[in-house]
Each structure stands twice: as C-alpha cells, then as structure tokens.
C-alpha cells in the first residue's frame, strides 16, 4: 500500500508572524517548522501501518514550498515516514490555494504513475493560512472520494471508516480506497522523533522535483496565476490596556458586574 502525507512548512505560530511589504507572508524573519496539525496526519499514517502489520506499506511525505520547506519533510522522515518528496520551484512563490492544490495533485499523480497511490493524508488546516480547503481541492482534482476532518480513522482491507465531528452532527463516513483523508488534532497525539528515528532519517530517500518534473507550467502557478489578490495587510492595532482588579473578599465580582452593567451586558 502506498500512502502519501502532505505536510506544510509554516512560520512558527508562537513567534511574531508578519507580512512583507508585498503582502506575502514573511517566511524569512520567523523560524519555520512542520505545521503542527500535519504531525497528526503523519501520525495517523504511521499508526495505520503499525495496525496493518505484515503488509508492505510505504509512506511518502510530500511538501510544496521554498528551499527551507524541506525541513517539514525531514521531520516527517524522523517521525517514521519512508521517503520524502519536495516540490520546489521559484515559479510557485505567491500561489494561492488553487495553485498549491494543483501542484500537490500533480505531484500525487506523478508519484502514482510509479506505483498506485491508495491514500493521500492531510492535516485539517495549515497553521498559517488555516483555510482547511486544500484537501477538498486535491480530492476534487484527483477525482477521489473526500473523507475529511476525521477524529477517528479505521481501515480494514480497502474499506475506510472515520468519525467526523461536523458543525451540526457527528457523522460516521465510509469509503473505499483510494481516497483523500484529512485528520484533526482529536485523532491522537503525534509522536516525537526518537534518536533512532532522527539518525535513520538521514539515510532515507529525499527527492526534489521541479514543476517540469510533475508536468505543471510555470504560468499555471505563482502570484500572477492566482485567482485571488491580496490588496492590503494591516497589523491589528494593539488593544488598549484594560482595567485589571484583584479580587479581595468578593470585590472582584462586584467590580466586574459594574463593568458589565456599564457596557449594557446586564
């Protein structure tokens, strides 16, 4: 079985994330890392392999992004993925969801031409863009069933069953492989790379592909081909410091009630 996990390299959410003057995300000034939400995707792929002991299962970590993005693939390899693929091309810079999903879908197709892909796993959303739309787009492009936002994943043979906590209901969704799967942070803690894992990762195959390698024209991606344009980015003005009181014998509740009443919430 052939599993591809799509992992994104993102600016650290706990750092001071900024936009450049051209309204693109500052990817230089802030340290990057494997999007935490994609660790859950890697974890589910690894667990699936562990549960299906004895089967020949290959897990490939795939990323699209600038040179530094390869770190996201490295981390996935350290966690236990077998192979890495990094699609990197100057023309990709500035792509929107539509462009990114095209590159991912074409890369999956290219890998599928070598040996059939059974499962493409995604995180629920990237921690920078947090659109949560790329998995659905890739499913649409590949014409595969979309089984997304899973908090529990079970497979048996070519059958997949997931639990999905939707906006208004909790659903059990079933599908037959091959599929596109995305998993939430409720699906189970992601493992830390072990020392052994870190050493082993250094010897794992890691391939870099260009747009030409996957059959995408430069004109189909990047800022010029984006179907959305960012016009302006503004840092939110800092909130004006509020009033802080210390509770003493119930004074806090009274003061807060007074504040709420002054704002007409009571």
């Amino acid at each position: 079985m052939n599993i591809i996990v799509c992992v994104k390299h993102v600016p650290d959410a706990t750092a001071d994330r900024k936009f450049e003057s051209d309204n693109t995300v500052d990817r230089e000034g802030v340290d990057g890392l494997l999007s935490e939400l994609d660790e859950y995707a890697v974890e589910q792929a690894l667990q699936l392999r562990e549960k299906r002991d004895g089967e020949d299962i290959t897990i490939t970590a795939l990323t699209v992004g600038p040179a530094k993005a390869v770190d996201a693939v490295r981390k996935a390899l350290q966690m236990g993925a077998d192979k890495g693929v990094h699609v990197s091309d100057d023309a990709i810079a500035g792509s929107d969801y539509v462009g990114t999903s095209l590159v991912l879908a074409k890369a999956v197709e290219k890998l599928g031409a070598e040996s059939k892909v059974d499962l493409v796993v995604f995180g629920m959303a990237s921690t920078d863009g947090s659109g949560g739309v790329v998995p659905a787009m890739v499913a649409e492009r590949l014409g595969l069933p979309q089984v997304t936002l899973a908090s529990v994943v079970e497979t048996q043979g070519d059958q997949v069953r997931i639990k999905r906590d939707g906006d208004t209901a909790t659903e059990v969704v079933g599908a037959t492989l091959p599929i596109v799967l995305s998993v939430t942070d409720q699906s189970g803690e992601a493992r830390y790379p072990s020392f052994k894992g870190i050493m082993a990762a250094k010897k794992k195959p890691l391939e870099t592909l260009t747009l030409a390698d996957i059959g995408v024209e430069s004109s189909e991606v990047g800022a010029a081909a984006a179907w959305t344009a960012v016009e302006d980015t503004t840092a939110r003005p800092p909130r004006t410091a509020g009033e802080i009181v210390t509770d003493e014998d119930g004074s806090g509740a009274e003061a807060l009630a007074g504040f709420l009443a002054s704002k007409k919430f009571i």
Partner: protein
Amino acid sequence: MSEVLVLVDHVDGAVRKPTNELLAIAKKLGSPSAVFIGSADAASGVVETVKKYGAEKVYVVDDAEVRGYLVAPKAEVLAQLVEKTSPAAVLLVSGSEGKEVAARLAIKTSSGIITDAVDVAEDGTATQSVFAGNYTLTGKVTHGTPIITVKPNSATPEDAAGAGEVEQFSPTISDAAKGAQVVASQPRQSTGRPELTEAAIVVSGGRGTGGDFAPVEKLADALGAAVGASRAAVDSGWIPHTFQVGQTGKTVSPQLYVANGISGAIQHRAGMQTSKTIVAVNKDEEAPIFELVDFGVVGDLHSVLPALADAVEARKN
C-alpha cells in the same frame, strides 16, 4: 442586477442564523438568491425565513441524492447553479462543511476562493482576520465567480423581505460524488443555550476550572450566554470538543467573551481575539489573556464566578 447565490445552512430545515447574515451581505453585491438543499417537506418553512431576510429568489433542491454523502454532491449542485445563473458571487457560511463545499466549487468553476471573511464590501473586497487576529487582510477574487465563505456574526441580518420567488432545481449528481458515504449521523444535542458561534455572549472555561464547569455554566445562564472551552479542558475530557474555541475549535466573535481559567495561548486567541469586549478571570496576574482584556479580575474563578452570577441576577431584577 446579477444574482448572488447563498447556500442555506440549516439543520433539517431549521435555518441557522448565519444564513440570514449572508443574505444581508448578498444584498450589497446583487440580488440575493438562497439555495436550499434539503427535504421537500421542509422547503416552505425555509422559504418563509429566507424571504423574510431578503431572498429575492429561492432555489429549492431536493436532497435525496445529496443527504447520504459527504460534501461533494453539494458542490455539484452549486456548480450547476453557477453555470445556470452566472452569479456575481457565491456566499457560504465559514464552517467546516461550507469551506469544503466552497473549495470544490472553486475548482469545478475555475474560480478564486476567499475563506473566513469577516466582511465583504459592495465591490466584492473581502476582509479577513489572520495570524490569530493579529492582522487584517483585504483581498478580492480576480478570476471566475467570487466564492467567499463568511464567518458567523460578520453582518447583521436585515429584516427586509425579498420577493422569495421559488424555483425548483433538479441537479444531476455524478457517481463520483458519492464516494464518501455517511453511514451514521448523530445530531448535536441541544444544550438549551445559544449556539456557540452565533451567541452574543460566550463564557468559557479552561484548565483553571479543574474540571468543574458548574460556575462557568451558572454565569453563562445568568448572562444568557453560550458556554465555550479551551483545548486543555477538552483534552482533559471535561467537556466535548464541540465547545472548544480556538484554532482547531470554533471561531467566535461575540459582543462579549468571558475567559475563565484560560491562559490565553495563541491558538486559543485565534478563536476569540475578534470579540468586541473581552473579560477574564484568572488567578495568575501574569497570564497572557490579560493583555487582551477590557476588564480583568485576578482571582479564583471558583469564588468570583458564582458571586458574579449572583450579582448579575441581582442587577437584572
């Protein structure tokens, strides 16, 4: 005037409030056309509601071939309606399903997509709040039909009736769209409190509750508020995930957000930073949540909240 398609967000024909907000936005962009995908029995009630909030037209689509499958069939319905009506825009509610339907629709119709808008102007310029609310971004779809998902509480529904002209629409659903089958569905139990994403006031509890949500609930009920939670409270098993506020939970933007025993991690902020007024009760005066508040109480929530609830009740009478 061009139509603007609004996908009706509903549970078994009960229209959810964000739909009415989308109709108000749609009116700025063109002529609002609601798209109801649901059971035929529920249609007349839905038509009444969306008409009341400004729908000039209502496309009624029987969901017999949509209901049992995840996301893809709805995108096909909308793609066919886009083909038929060449709308000025398609608006959907920015929930997990709305975003995924929008994503597929964008690919199907070769259109640009903007997610999580908090406002859309007359000319289609959408405003988004990004990086946990630290940046405001404006942008536009430049290709195809603008497909925009809008967060709940981003507009005020307008009580101005539209013509509400009903048109039955029969889509063709492909077999390919039926690959992911919903084999069981458990509707969310109503808590009797307002819906988290729609509520005017949200009262949340975190790890600081120590697992006892009673004071949080008591205050919520005194204020007529929804209850929310941090991921730490959810991960501890104290409250279901559906109550989680934050990056991987719900995004809320109420008039008032009350954070209790919540430190204010960036991922929690991502879900509440755009609240109009923020209040916190936390026993650690160094807690980062105090950087955000309009009013904060340094104290133990187990004594402050019950007293506050009583004070609220007392002032009501």
